């Protein structure tokens, strides 16, 4: 048998597999976009990543498969310290999460916002930082030096955001031209750095960084508004994985809160910039900001009565 025989046999495989591979974004299905990119100056070009859309979908389901960053932290009078993130060792044979290095810090991919109108995207961004070109992976990171500015596992034009501190949030802008229908959709993907910091009260996250009280729409449910207010005053705690309180009340180290349906619910708050924020609310008053698995063990603790409405 020759390789040609395999190629011939492949031709007649299950058509569903062929169509599925096409739909997931083969070069064939994206040829128009490739041609367009080739004719566009690089610095002004958005880059399309179908995978970004898929990853966003997974994030919204709380099921992103990432290399296992073991959460760790230190509880102290002044709050919890989230250690500075490091990139994985080259020996890790693991999937990568979307991340960008900027100013010596690691920003992890979180939410995303999309629109058919380019101006909807540009109203949110501020300063162009450069292009992320997916030049980091688990095998090359050490060799290339991980601290390289805008070293990333993702693609896109990197910007700061108008309403957020550059030390906390940056974003990539991408566009996607539908291969068959021809219309273009624009994507903004957020990256957050919540490591190498100390969080004392909920407001350190919700107000100082997310500006939540300012950006909550007027139509927000009053009970949510009240919960946000309580969270602002809540102390931050770190609960180590595989400890009794964590396993009994909070789930397990996989961060799969859905396994504890009776104990937890997902809370999605959509600020005015339309990028949803995901929280896991536990019956015992523990609330976790789920921007990334890395942070699944850090909780704001409020009176359980404040979260009862979520379980009704």
């Amino acid at each position, binding site marked *: 048998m020759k390789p040609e025989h395999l190629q011939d046999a492949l031709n007649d495989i299950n058509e*569903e*597999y062929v169509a599925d591979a096409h739909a997931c974004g083969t070069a064939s299905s994206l*040829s128009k976009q490739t041609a367009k990119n080739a004719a566009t100056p690089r610095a002004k070009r958005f880059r399309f*990543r179908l*995978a970004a859309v898929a990853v966003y979908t997974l994030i919204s389901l709380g099921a992103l498969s990432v290399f296992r960053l073991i959460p760790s932290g230190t509880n102290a009078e002044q709050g919890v310290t989230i250690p500075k993130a490091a990139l994985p060792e080259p020996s890790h044979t693991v999937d990568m999460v979307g991340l960008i290095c900027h100013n010596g810090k690691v920003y992890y991919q979180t939410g995303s916002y999309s629109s058919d109108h380019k101006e909807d995207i540009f109203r949110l961004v501020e300063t162009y930082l450069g292009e992320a070109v*997916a030049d980091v*992976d688990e095998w090359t990171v050490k060799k290339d030096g991980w601290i390289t500015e805008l070293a990333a596992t993702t693609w896109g034009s990197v910007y700061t955001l108008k309403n957020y501190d550059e030390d906390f949030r940056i974003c990539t802008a991408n566009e996607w031209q539908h291969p068959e229908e021809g219309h273009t959709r624009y994507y903004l993907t957020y990256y957050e750095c919540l490591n190498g910091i100390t969080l004392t009260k909920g407001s350190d996250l919700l107000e100082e960084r997310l500006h939540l009280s300012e950006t909550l729409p007027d139509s927000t449910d009053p009970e949510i508004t009240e919960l946000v207010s309580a969270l602002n005053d809540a102390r931050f705690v770190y609960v180590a994985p595989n400890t009794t309180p964590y396993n009994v009340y909070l789930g397990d180290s996989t961060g799969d809160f859905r396994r504890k349906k009776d104990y937890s619910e997902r809370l999605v708050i959509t600020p005015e910039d339309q990028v949803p924020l995901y929280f896991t609310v536990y019956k015992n008053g523990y609330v976790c900001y789920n921007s990334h698995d890395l942070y699944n063990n850090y909780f704001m603790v409020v009176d359980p009565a404040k979260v009862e409405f979520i379980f009704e």
Partner: protein
Amino acid sequence: MEDTEIIALYWDRDERAISETATKYGSYCHSIAYRLLQNTEDAKECVNDTYVGAWNSIPPHRPELLSAFLGKITRRISINRLRERNAGKRAAGQYALTLEELSDCIPSGQRAEDMAETKELTRILNAFLATLSIEERRVFLCRYWYFDSVKEIAKRFDCGQSKIKMMLKRTREKLLTHLEKEGFYP
């Protein structure tokens, strides 16, 4: 136009079936052909031959997935064209590279020669593909069905080229094992 309507045109022997196919799937077929042939004129001819192939095979066929059905015709015609063009010469491009890679999963031995029936191989490949994870299968087909380069696949799947290379290598190893289990022993 919906695929079912296009297929109905074929069954009615209405020539609009060709123009509707070209409108909806022309660029898809062309990109498959061009990727293999690296020549616009040759690719156009293969796409036109695809339409003829579809016209001749619908009916009796009533494809459930018209895109894949057309893609298969284009791929087969383009590979044949490439082989004619390269007769006696060393092939080049992504097709040649994939052949080199696929040689990793060719068991040696007489038995292998005996069983190299295309239909039987297709059955075995379908069974093998069903054992892969969705991501492995997609990456494998992007490379060996659509002839995408590793770099292109890495971009699409938002990961490093090393990861894709490693995934393809492991999948080829699994395929070799699978073929040996099916009787293609060394």
